[in-house]
């Protein structure tokens, strides 16, 4: 391996991380308040919920699938957690996880056993789960408030100025890295995404691996929803619309291939933070109209993806 090849490979794998570092540097130089602790904390805290969902999505995408239901599961998890919090901390956590896990299991079984396209199955999930949430909340008009102080503390308690969900996210990310890189399950996920038929011939349990991946994604989306409800002290019903696209964007920016078979957790976390930093920079400017905000964030994303594409080409040529 030449040194040039090595450089371009690292660049592609950690492209998001580098763009992130660059943006943070530029932001700190351009705006006084950008690198202030409060601002950095707001980026990290708000990114943590997206990151939890994106960890699950990374497994799904590496396995060659897609999960469009996560935005709806996120809002359902939040509503159920807020509703359940009147019966205490345990119910507030178990109720959303059980419901979301069940949806994930259902989706996983359908995808793995019938061979239907994950896009369609989880699109049905997206619609159905949001409908379920609206049914539970009186068409979204009823907002359940979090009654249990212990549950609220889970989302609002702080260590060193950062709320608990940040540390939960770090823990989950580390666990996911180990799961993906150091276990047979992780290797199976890569193998299925790389070439499903070859994997099946080699004796990889394709169906059960797929089911587990979708259950995991749904559980993480539900957990993120529950933690977010604890943070907001209420089961807000208008959350999560279009969230699946942000999550998928973060994962892909992070270097995971949409076609499956390659990717990792570090890149995903960098991708999530990158989205948060772009938003923060737009807020620092503070006078862009909503239309231009979208143009700017679209351009940034396009830049990252184009850069990655060029780098991977250079890698193949050398």
């Amino acid at each position, binding site marked *: 391996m030449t040194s040039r090849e090595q450089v371009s490979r690292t660049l592609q794998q950690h492209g998001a991380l580098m763009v992130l570092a660059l943006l943070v540097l530029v932001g700190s130089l351009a705006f006084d*308040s950008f690198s202030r602790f409060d601002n950095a904390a707001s980026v990290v805290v708000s990114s943590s919920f997206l990151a939890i969902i994106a960890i699950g999505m990374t497994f799904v995408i590496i396995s060659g699938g897609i999960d469009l239901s996560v935005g709806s599961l996120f809002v359902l998890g939040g509503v159920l957690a807020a509703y359940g919090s009147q019966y205490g901390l345990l119910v507030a956590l178990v109720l959303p996880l059980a419901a979301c896990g069940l949806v994930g299991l259902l989706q996983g079984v359908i995808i793995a056993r019938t061979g239907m396209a994950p896009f369609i199955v989880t699109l049905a999930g997206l619609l159905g789960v949001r409908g379920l949430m609206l049914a539970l909340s009186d068409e979204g008009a009823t907002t359940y408030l979090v009654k249990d102080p212990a549950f609220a503390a889970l989302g609002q308690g702080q260590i060193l100025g950062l709320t608990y969900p940040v540390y939960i996210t770090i823990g989950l990310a580390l666990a996911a890295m180990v799961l993906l890189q150091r276990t047979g399950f992780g290797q199976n996920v890569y193998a299925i995404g790389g070439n499903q038929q070859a994997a099946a011939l080699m004796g990889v349990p394709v169906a059960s691996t797929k089911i587990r991946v979708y259950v995991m994604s749904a559980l993480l989306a539900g957990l993120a929803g529950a933690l977010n409800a604890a943070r*907001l002290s209420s089961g807000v019903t208008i959350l999560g619309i279009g969230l699946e696209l942000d999550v998928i964007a973060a994962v892909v920016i992070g270097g995971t291939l949409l076609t499956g078979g390659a990717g990792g957790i570090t890149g995903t976390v960098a991708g999530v933070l990158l989205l948060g930093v772009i938003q923060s920079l737009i807020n620092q400017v503070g006078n862009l109209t909503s239309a231009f905000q979208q143009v700017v964030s679209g351009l940034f994303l396009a830049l990252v993806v184009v850069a990655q594409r060029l780098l991977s080409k250079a890698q193949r040529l050398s």
Partner: protein
Amino acid sequence: MKPPIRTATLALAVLLTAAGCAKAEAPQSAPAATSTAGQQVVQTPTGSAGANCTLQQFGGEKFDLKTATVGFSQSEKEANPFRIAETQSIKDEAAKLGIADLKVTNAQSQFSKQITDVQQLIAQGVKLLVIAPLNSDGWEPVLQQAAAKKIPIITVDRKINAKPCSDYLTFIGSDFYEQGKRAADQMIEALSSKGKVAILLGAPGNNVTTERTNGFKDRVKEAAPEIEISFEQTGEFAREKGQQVTEQLIQSNPDINGIYAENDEMALGAVTALKGAGKEAGDIKIVSVDGTRSAVQAIADGWLHAVIESNPRFGPLAFSTAQKFLDGEAIPEKVIISDRDYDTSNAKTSLGEAY
């Protein structure tokens, strides 16, 4: 064409289309933003409702508005006349008062983003926050941070479910329940107290939708029990959604006599749907709330029966309230503005005051 050139051409085409779309609403709002006609008026004498709050009670410190950083958090894209006029009014008034450092954020209808937006405004050191909340609940993290720094929050157009004078300073907006009641009065008159009515509800989870619905229903129940509300569905305050729901409505309830749309955008969507179904202007009586220029024009054209105004020009009132508060005057817990009616008698002449 080689692929890169084709891609570039396509990208250019997309950009041009986007620019075209972005411009579409601009000419409408331009005259309204600069003229002083149609400014908000505080309702008297009930305008100063509720307990009074002074700077001392709130626990803040006096500062000079002109040199302070002021934050405005908008909830939805400036893609409909109400939001365009609202943001413009805040910006114009800030410029007029010489407030040099106004930071504006836009949550693009994503509530999580609005929370982060406001937190980042606080991190930028704002001394005053003007918030147009997307949702009434879920403000806990923001309220905690603002309270720790004693930053007064003025919410405009929608409420936050929290304590005035401690969690936030005050709310400036319309009496939405009253708007619903007045819309009902217009509908009752249009239908001569008899018939079937459909409601296009606003977005769920905020007080505007709830109060506009309750006001309408309560009034219909008490004044015209022979009017039956046979259909209710949310159009989420959006034109396309209003059109879509109305298309379903005329399929499932062909005998409908009136439509109450909880904002003008949905009403205009309904008009498109009715035109598509071959209806004539006036066949189905439409009453809505907001007072946008297109809606007032639609009254003049005969498609809408009446529009109850909901004035979005919050700039002058928001900053004068803040100034009064800083000068030590007592601020009521809600500042209710008085809204007017548009109907066939005044639509043509009042077109200039609509936004």
